[in-house]
Structure formats: C-alpha cells, structure tokens
C-alpha cells in the first residue's frame, strides 16, 4: 500500500514483477534482505538496480551463473564478483558496500551478531542494499523465499526446460510481519521474470504432459510443488 509516507523512502528500482512483495515497490536503500536458497530469485532482484545503472557486487557465490544473470537483465559490465573471499568476507562486503549500490553476499562462515550489526549500520549509513543469500541475518528488512516452484517443458525422456512457475513469499519488518506472496514466472519462456497474473504461457500443454506422463513415484508422492507453506496458502497467493 504505497502512501505518501512510503513514497519518500529512497529505493533502488526492482523488476515490476516484485511489486506485490516489496512494499515500497523497490529495494529500500540502507536495508538488508535475506533471499532463501534460490539463486534465480537473487539474480532477479539484482536485475532491477543493474538495469537502472547501479554497480552491483556478488561475494561468496563461486557458482553464480553469469549467463543466466545476463539473460535476466543484469548488466555484466557493472557486476563484480568476489567468488571466494575466505575468512575476509566481512571486510570485503564492507569495502564493497562503501562504493556499490547493491551487494549480494553468501556468507561462507557465520557472522557474529555484533559483526552483522556493524555491517548493517554501515549499509544503512551508505544507503546501499545488502542481499544475504541463503543464510539468516539478524535485523533484515524482508526475508524472501521461493515456497513452491514447478518447471515446465520436460517430459519423460523428452523436451527441455523452458519456464518455471514459482511462488515467492516475503515476510519481515517491511511487511509488518505479515506474509506477502506473489506468483511469478521465474523465468518465463523468454528468460524474463514476470508476474504470473500478467501473462499466461503461450501454451501449457507441455506443463500438463509433465504430470500426465510423470512416472509413478518411488518413495514420495509426486506433487506439482511442495514447500514449507501448506497448499492453501500458496493458492491464496
């Protein structure tokens, strides 16, 4: 609910698809966000500021798929990677936060609360945004999670991955403690991130064929998606 009060909060622009989960319509400068497990979601959050001309840094993700990042709209010429910072990761992040608008970090080792608080203070002071990937972080603005995901395009021995439907959920201070969820194409057939409500896929036949032809399960029931939240909540989103 964007009001006059939220409009003056300085933000970094995010992709339009995240309008439902980010209360200010963008990433709030000076805040820290936690992204659980999904690298694609991290890259999608990176894409908005990068397209708008911000320099971004990624610390501690040696396996980052730069090709996927470029396809999602991240400008690789303004992206700097520190794949293996080792035990100096806090110093590296602090140095980058001083000069960059957005820093993604996957902490290789846990940070003490005091260190985390000191870093958060620095982020706040510089007006940067810290995205913590795959790890908890005290005092974060929002925690973004992919609660369910389903890939389209693969059959039993044929086809190729084309698109993914995912439910992204945000909870934290920024939402007043309430859960906000949105259904996204992460990515869609063109490699872009779009809201599921905006556009349906060109044809959903292959998605159906996954389930029609999916082999009977061996040890676990085959579900279109599973996750931490129950099915009711996902549908509500």
């Amino acid at each position, binding site marked *: 609910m964007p009001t006059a009060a939220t409009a003056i909060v300085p933000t970094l622009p995010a992709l339009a698809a995240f309008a439902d989960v980010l209360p200010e319509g963008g990433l709030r400068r000076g805040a820290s966000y936690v992204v659980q*497990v*999904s*690298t*694609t979601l991290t*890259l999608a959050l990176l894409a908005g500021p990068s397209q708008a001309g911000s*320099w971004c840094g990624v610390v501690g993700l*040696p*396996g*980052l*798929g*730069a*090709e*996927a*990042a470029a396809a999602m709209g991240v400008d*690789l*010429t303004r*992206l*700097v*990677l*520190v794949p*293996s*910072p*080792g*035990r*100096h990761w806090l110093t*590296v992040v602090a*140095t*980058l936060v*001083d*000069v*960059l608008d957005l820093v993604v970090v996957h902490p290789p080792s846990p940070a003490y609360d005091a260190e985390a608080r000191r870093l958060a203070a620095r982020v706040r002071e510089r007006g940067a945004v810290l995205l913590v990937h795959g790890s908890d972080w005290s005092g974060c603005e929002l925690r973004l999670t*992919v609660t369910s995901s*389903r*890939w389209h*395009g*693969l*059959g*039993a*021995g044929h*086809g*190729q*991955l*084309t698109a*993914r439907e*995912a439910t992204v959920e945000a909870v934290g201070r920024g939402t007043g403690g309430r859960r906000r969820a949105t259904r996204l194409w992460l*990515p869609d057939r063109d*490699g872009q991130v779009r809201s599921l409500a905006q556009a349906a896929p060109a044809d959903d036949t292959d998605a159906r064929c*996954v389930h029609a032809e*999916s*082999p*009977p*399960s*061996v*040890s*676990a*029931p*085959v*579900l279109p*998606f*599973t996750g931490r939240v129950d099915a009711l909540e996902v549908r509500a989103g």
Partner: protein
Amino acid sequence: MTRTVVVWCPDWPVTAAAREAGHPEDVPLAVLDRGRVLACSATARRDGVRRGLRVREAQARCPELVTLPYDPAVDARVFEPVVTLVEELAPGVEIIRPGICAVGARGPSRYYGGSDLAKGELTFAQVLHDRLSDAGFGCVVGIADGPFAAEQAARLAEQAGETVLAFPPGESARCLAPLPIDALREGRLPGQADVDRSDLIDLLRRLGIRTLGAFAALPFSQVVTRFGTVGAAAHRLASGRDDRPLATRRPPPELATSATFEPPLERVDQVAFGIREAAERLVHGLAERDLVCACLRVEIRTEDDEPRGRRWRHPRWFTAADVVDRVRWQLQGTRTTSDGPAEELTSGVVRVDLIPDEVAPTGAYQDGLWGDQAPDERIHRAFTRIQSMLGHEAVVTAVLSGGRAPAERVTLVPWGDDATPARPTDEPWPGHLPPPAPATVLPEPEPVDVLDATGQVVTLDDRYGMSAPCQLLVRNGTEREPVVGWAGPWPVEERWWDPATARRYARFQVACATGNAYVLLHEKGRWWIEARYD
C-alpha cells in the same frame, strides 16, 4: 656529399629466423615466402639452393634443408640488438631495411683517425665489424659517399670475401660504373618510399644499358624526359649523387626501471617494500614526459628459477602503489592459502624489472566530461583494495563467451585485465544447452545417484541406450528427490581423435518434485550434478 658507413648482414631473413627458432648457424636453412625461397644460408647455397626456387626444387637439391616461414616482424625484432650495438659506437643510425643500417662516418672517423679521415673510417669500420662478430652477427661494412654507394660497396666486399670496403671520397660514381644495372633495385632517395624499379631496369636492359656507368653517362635532362621521376631518381643514384641525409632514429628514452636486491629477499612484503622506490621512479619518469602507463611488464629474477615475466593491464593508469601491488600479486602467484595469499617465497628474489609496455599521453586518459564507460575512481579503488587483500584473481568480472558446457559459457576476467571472452561468442556452438541458462554452475561437479523404479542406478550403454527411465535422485546418499520430468541423453564426444584428452559423456536435464531442476552428467558409469536451476 656525406660519407656514410653501411653495415650489411647478408642473408638477414635466414639469420633472424634461425635465431628466433633456435637453429644453429651451420644447418642448411631456407626462409620461404609464398612457396618460394626468399633467402637461404651459406650451407644451403653450397648445395645449390637459390633465391626464388620453389620449395620442392630446393628440397630436391638439398634434402636436409630446414625451411622456416618468412616473418617481417621477426626480421625487424631480431635486428634491434644489432642497431643497439652500432648505436653504442656511433649515434644516429638509420635502419634502411632489417639487415642493413647506415651511420654517418664523419664523427667516428675523426674520433678514430684524428686528421687522417681515411684511416679513421677504416678503423671505425673494423671496430664495428669486430663488435658485431663478437656478438655473433656476421656482417660486412661498406663506406662511400651516400648510403646507396656504401651499400653497393658492402655488397662488393661480401662478394670479394672482404670484411670492409671503402670507395675513396668523390670517386663513388667511378666505382659504381662497372656494377650491373640490377643494383638499382634497392636504392632510395629522400622523400621517396620504396619504389619498384623492375620495369625501369627491364627497359634499360632492353635498350642495351647494362651497367650503372652506362646509365649515368646519359644526359640527365633526357633521362627525365624519357623515364620520368623514377628514372631521374635512379639516374642520381647511378651517378653517385645520392646526397640525402640519413633519416637517423633517436634512441628511445629509457623508461624502464629496476631494483636489485643483495642479499636476495625471501618474503613478499620485503620485495614489495624494496620495489617502492623503483615504482615511484617509473611513474615519475613517465610523468616528466607527460606520459602514463596503461600496460606494464614485470620481470622477476630469482636465485634459481628462470626469470618470470607477466603483463599487467590497468583499467586507468598505474600509480606507484598500483605497481607495487602488481609485483606482489605476481610473486604470490597462485599460491594462495585459505588465509589469503602466501607471504613466503620459494626462492629469493634477486632483481625486479618494471617495463612500461604501453604508454599514452596523459590527456588520453582524462575522464570524459559526461563520464564514460570507465568506472569512477572510488569504485576502482575499492576493487583494488580487495585485490591487494586477496590477490589479483579474487575480484573478477564476467564476460559471456562461447562454449558448450555451462561452465564454458562465461569467462571470468580479473579486475583490470582485458575483458575478452576465452572463446568467440559469434559462432553457433551446436550442442550447448538451450536457454534458460542454469542459475548456479557448480565449480566442481557434485556426485549424485540416479535410480530407476526398482532402485537400481540407471546406466548407459555404449550407444547411449538407458537401462531404465530416471525415477529418483539421491544427493549425498540421503536426500531423495523424485524425478517428475527428464530429457536426454544428449551425448557429447570431445576430442575423440586424441586418446589422452578424449571425453565421452552424456547430459540430462532433470526436474524434481521438490521444484529443483538440474543439469546432470553421466560419464563412465557415474552421475554428477553439473549445474542447478535453483
């Protein structure tokens, strides 16, 4: 008329190519240009190899002939030490062509002969010849009025088996007279580039003019009318009126600096400290000439290793602190421990050379008024600080590159280096994964088990036939992920012609009920996760 000394190294393309390729001088050698012999060594000539022969003919005459391709760049590069040696004896050297250079005779002949110029000339020529022979360059020296006559004198000396030949002052025309008209092929006059005089020589020969003397005897005005400017220039050469001044080169200023350590230094930080003064001298020396260095070569000599050189590029230009950093990174090399780069060296450092490879005027690197592609100074300084902490390779930017495997599709370039992809992107690369690209490409493939409906590991036969459909993925032996969709096998056979590096594997795309999707790899009966769509 300026007295000129010409130093000629016969068969220079052969000498240069042999030195570059590391062949000894006495091997029969021929340098080939477009399938024909361009030059050959004396041993090859003894067997009947001549300039202009076809390769097959030359090899028939001399079966043990070693052939090397002609490379003008090598010619010029290997000639550089010769020019430096001549410059040490007398300044003002003109490189006529690689293999032949000219120097004014007046100064040196006074130095060596005092009032007796003729004696001084010969002494200088002898000294020059001895100096070059000591360095291993065979050469002959010709002295005459003007470079053309001096070059002809050198060629005559070589034919006569002499080392030095001088045409007496003022008698160049008389000495040139008996030479064949073909000698005109190579001469040059001021303000004229190399011209092709073969047509003129051909015509003169058909007119019955076979020597330079006969040509020089023709009246100048009629030569101009009949043969134009090309003829006029040739006439001046033939009549010994080659009065052009030498286009001497100035020795390039010495910009490189170095630091020598006695006793050898054992630790990286000691070297970094010791090199600081040399780095400041380098940057200061460049600044005095209004230059900045954007590409630096650092050569490190240690007690027992070979000297190691490396080129470093800078996104802007080098300051003294940047230079010190580059030296340190080069010393640390890839020996990075978990705590950061190592400080101990394997052998003591004796000497460090800092050689600017590319310099540019200071103005060329000013920021554009509206900002340009270069990142602003603050960002650059932060990245450099992280590099000084973790090493040069620790801060990278990604460039899309061509390739088939997911990991090959991206080249990681250390900050500051040229962002060039390892493989070209504009080629089709058939067999690469279709988009979307995986979000995580594992640096090391992770082992995984792929089971079928009965709990057996799925196997592939030699013809990529699967034993059963994929049903279940087991990661780390415990995490079970039921497969809801899969595609493959997509066979890859790499370098099948070379048994040592050949690889034969198959790729799969697999989607799991957990919502994860993977790129799997099956090689030699084992399964690996290569990339994740997470």
